[in-house]
């Protein structure tokens, strides 16, 4: 097949690729005009890109909303629907640090040292944060429910017969003492499954008593 090589204006026939010249110089220097064109095209494109970056488009808004929604759903599912991770999370803190921090923590949280009837509804459950932490204690539903029950405890107790008030207070104190003992024991043996289980059940016992008092107070108010 014959190809015509006509870059130099003198047309001649070539019979193979090897006869074609490797460098063909343009008739004039094209670079200045190319550079000028690039410069004129790049400036508006950059400006547009900047604007695009600063101002999200409709699709980007949608994507952003979807991400936020997914995140919210994820948090809700994680906190409300899924079970707590494991029955008990044991904080592996150094004993000396635990001892050092126990004083201030107890001072901040009167319920932590009070084994009688708790009156501080906003106080955290009786947990030494440096020894053990039952998973559901940090569950907001548990904390809220417990706080609500404790807020009403004093008023509900007053509606009960005096000897019953004493017995309830004594039973709650027994549970608190048990929880403290279990926490102390777990502090020395954090992986002890028996103690972990007993601790979780003791928290449930406390809730059961608070609920029983709540129900009994409602009953004695007028059945």
């Amino acid at each position, binding site marked *: 097949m014959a190809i015509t090589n006509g870059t130099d204006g003198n047309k001649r026939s070539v019979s193979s690729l090897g006869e074609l010249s490797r460098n063909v110089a343009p008739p004039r220097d094209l670079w200045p005009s190319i550079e000028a064109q690039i410069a004129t095209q790049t400036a508006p494109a950059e400006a547009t890109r900047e604007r695009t970056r600063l101002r999200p488009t409709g699709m980007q808004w949608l994507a952003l909303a979807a991400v936020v929604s997914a995140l919210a759903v994820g948090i809700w599912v994680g906190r409300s629907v899924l079970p707590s991770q494991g029955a008990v999370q044991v904080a592996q803190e150094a004993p000396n640090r635990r001892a050092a921090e126990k004083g201030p923590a107890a001072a901040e949280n009167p319920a932590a040292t009070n084994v009688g009837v708790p009156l501080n509804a906003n106080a955290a459950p009786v947990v030494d944060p440096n020894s053990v932490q039952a998973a559901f204690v940090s569950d907001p539903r548990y904390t809220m429910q417990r706080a609500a029950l404790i807020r009403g405890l004093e008023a509900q107790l007053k509606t*009960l*017969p005096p*000897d*019953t008030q004493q*017995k*309830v207070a*004594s*039973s709650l104190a*027994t*549970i608190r003492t*048990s929880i403290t*003992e*279990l926490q102390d*024991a777990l502090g*020395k*043996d954090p992986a*002890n499954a*028996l*103690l972990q*289980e*007993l601790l979780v*059940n*003791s928290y449930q*016992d406390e809730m*059961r*008593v608070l609920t*029983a*008092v709540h129900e*009994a107070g409602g*009953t*004695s108010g*007028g*059945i």
Partner: protein
Amino acid sequence: MSIRQPLLISLLLVAASVAHAADRDFEQTVKADPRGSVRVSNVAGKVHVTGWDRSEVEVKARFSGNVERVEVLSDKGRTTIKVILPRSSSRSGEADLEIHVPRQSDLDISAVSADVSTERLLGPQRLTTVSGDVRAEFAKDFEGKTVSGDLRLKGQSEPGDVRVSSVSGDVYLDRGGGDVEVTSVSGDLLLDVSSVTTVRTRTTSGDLSLRGALARDGSVEAETISGDVTVRVKPVAGFQYEATSFSGTIGNCFGRHAENTNAHGPGTRLNGTAGDGRGRVRVKSMSGDVAICDR
């Protein structure tokens, strides 16, 4: 106005209040469904319910103090008996109720300081008091709750659903059968079961004693924090047992020694099999002593 009139009015008021405070009697009988529900509520005094073969509910009451009246309503198989106290009073009245209901009735009693007792009933019972004691005979399903009242319960060894809880009251259960769940914080639990399928029981500081017969494939779960636990169940087909305690001792009649679970600290465990091991017994305590036996 002479001085006589105020004097007379005062005397009348005193007489009225004395009459009001004196004991008064009440009696009413209403038709009832043989398998209907009966709901009773009383704050103070007592409630005694007996089952009979008539299709009617009979209420006899003696009340005193500020009790206004006893209300008995019957509608569509549901009978309600209520001791009414005036809202504005100090609510210090009390009433003793003697009630007869159809034997198969579904009974629900709610009391505060009133003692509650039932007998000759075959239907399900739900009895709740705050400080009143409960004494009940039941056939199958039973639920009892008290805060400080004791519960003395007698079943008929029939399979049913038995759930009992107290805060500080003691629980005595005789001839419980089926599925039994008993919990207390500081009350002692003395449970005697017959052919029981499952037992779940727990106390915090109260002592726990379970004895009786375990059905084939039956299971027992007993737990205390500082209370002592004794489990003596005769198995129909043997059982696997596992007892663990953090600092309490574990005794048994199998001739075995509990092993230490922690080489450097407290903790003991005893496990093994009695008979062909169809059932299962698990006991846990923190500092309470544990004793386990199959006879």
